[in-house]
């Protein structure tokens, strides 16, 4: 096997809550992602997924452990990753093409060139004709595609997607997953996606990583050996359902732990 694209080695993170108290959020998270692989990370809510993501993206520093990109230490480095937050965060004062160009402009590319680069993706992202629209003119699904476009345009090696479709209604979400699956098989980006949705995880990814309740550590790694490109009809196949069941079982166990934790903390 080649050098993994990303390698997480024993990540640790504690937050100081003040008054001598602290919260252990990430505990010894280790996994790796191969070049061109799509990995979904799933875990009970509040388990520390987002913190882990911020550490990978270089937005927060781990207390211990390493993030490696191509075998090199990349702790605190942001230039490898393009990050897509949960909310689309499209800026109302920018048109869609300008929103798409945001990352390039921030990185110092001349505006004209950045806009041209951004425009090239509009067809693939089903946004052709909406270059000069403003975000409020777009539907939820389109806004999310625009946000993904803004992420991809940056041309970075790895995409970090934080619940990209979490805010969408279920029909739009299915269409988006279907679309992303198609685009992804075309571009084969290396991607890590956080999700709450087991079906989404199985449908989109090559591998699913299940995290434990807080403090997060890796509970299970599950290879999804389903052929690509995947059709929507796949989700009712016995293989698909078997993966889902396996994940549901583990995840619910962790969710119960998380729930007990939260109740314990409040009483």
């Amino acid at each position, binding site marked *: 096997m080649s050098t993994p694209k990303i390698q997480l080695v024993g990540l640790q993170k504690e937050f100081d809550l003040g008054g001598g108290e602290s919260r252990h959020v990430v505990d010894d998270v280790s996994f790796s992602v191969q070049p061109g692989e799509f990995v979904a990370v799933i875990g009970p809510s509040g388990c520390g997924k987002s913190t882990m993501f911020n550490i990978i993206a270089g937005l927060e520093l781990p207390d211990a452990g390493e993030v490696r990109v191509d075998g090199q230490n990349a702790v605190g480095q942001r*230039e490898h990753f393009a990050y897509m*937050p949960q909310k689309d*965060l499209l800026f109302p004062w920018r048109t869609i093409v300008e929103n798409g160009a945001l*990352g390039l402009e921030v990185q110092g590319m001349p505006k004209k060139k950045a806009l041209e680069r951004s425009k090239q993706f509009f067809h693939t992202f089903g946004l*052709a004709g909406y270059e000069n629209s403003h975000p409020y*003119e777009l539907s939820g699904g389109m806004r999310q595609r625009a946000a993904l476009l803004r992420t991809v345009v940056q041309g970075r090696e790895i995409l970090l997607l934080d619940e990209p479709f979490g805010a969408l209604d279920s029909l739009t979400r299915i269409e988006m997953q279907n679309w992303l699956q*198609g685009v992804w098989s075309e571009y084969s980006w290396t991607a890590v996606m956080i999700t709450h949705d087991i079906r989404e995880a199985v449908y989109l990814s090559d591998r699913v990583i299940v995290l434990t309740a807080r403090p997060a550590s890796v509970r299970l790694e599950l290879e999804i050996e389903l052929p690509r490109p995947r059709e929507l009809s796949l989700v009712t196949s016995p293989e698909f359902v078997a993966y889902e069941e396996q994940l549901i079982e583990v995840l619910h166990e962790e969710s119960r732990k998380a729930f007990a934790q939260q109740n314990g903390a409040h009483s």
Partner: protein
Amino acid sequence: MTSLENRKPAPPAAGAVTPAVRATRSGPPSKPAKKKRTRRGSFWGSVLPPIVIVALLVVIWEVGVSVTGVRPQVLPAPSRVVVEGLERADIIWGHTLSTLQVTLIGFAFSLIVAWIIAIAIDFSGVLRRGLMPLLVASQTIPIIAIAPLMIIWFGFGLLPKILVVALVTFFPIVVGLIEGFNKADRETSNLLRSMGAGRWKEFTFVRLPSAMPSFFTALRISITYAVVGAIFAEYVGAQSGLGIFMSTQKNAFRTDLVLAAVAVTAVLSITLYLLTFVIERLVIPWSFKERKARGDR
């Protein structure tokens, strides 16, 4: 906008879909206009009520004065205010220009100071903690006490008046800007940082533009204070201006001329207030369109 809302993603055929999409896009501009008319009424629907109410009050006033026979030194009839005011229109106009000058220069100065303070506070938590109490304290200074002192310190020229106008107007702008900057949340900040932005780029790309709507709200509040502030500063002592005009006419028991000056002041304030909407639409057209789109839903 519903036609856009329901558009389904169809990526492989996106090129084929485009013409249809363009066709639907030409629709929206006419639609909100229609909606606006039914909900908020026409232009006259929003202009007529205040005119009717003001006209009614003026009529009651006119009739009341002539029925009771009250002396004009106490309460002149509106007709008298208009006639006497128009007779001295050129004098009043000269004073109005003075007041306008003080207002605009003072307000410009106030804007510069407010922006500098707000940006400094946005970049430094220490400055925020250090300056905020002082700023709040500055607003507790009674202008009525400080304005005469300003004249003692700085004379009868422009400077004391500019300072008074700035003192009464800068605070809402500072607060509006600081809160506006903070509308950019943690997640947006993370997004920008992930793109490689430092604090300054985060400010110019996100915090500054997201503060503009609250800036204009603050601007509207402040500009009305600015006129009152200017007139107050002149009232205490000046060579010209509506404030000093009111003061001398009051001492001469020319209540009618005082009221004429008050009317001019009101017109001036309203004009400046409305002007902020025009400037807002020119500077941040997106904000207006976005609000309208939200309202339509």
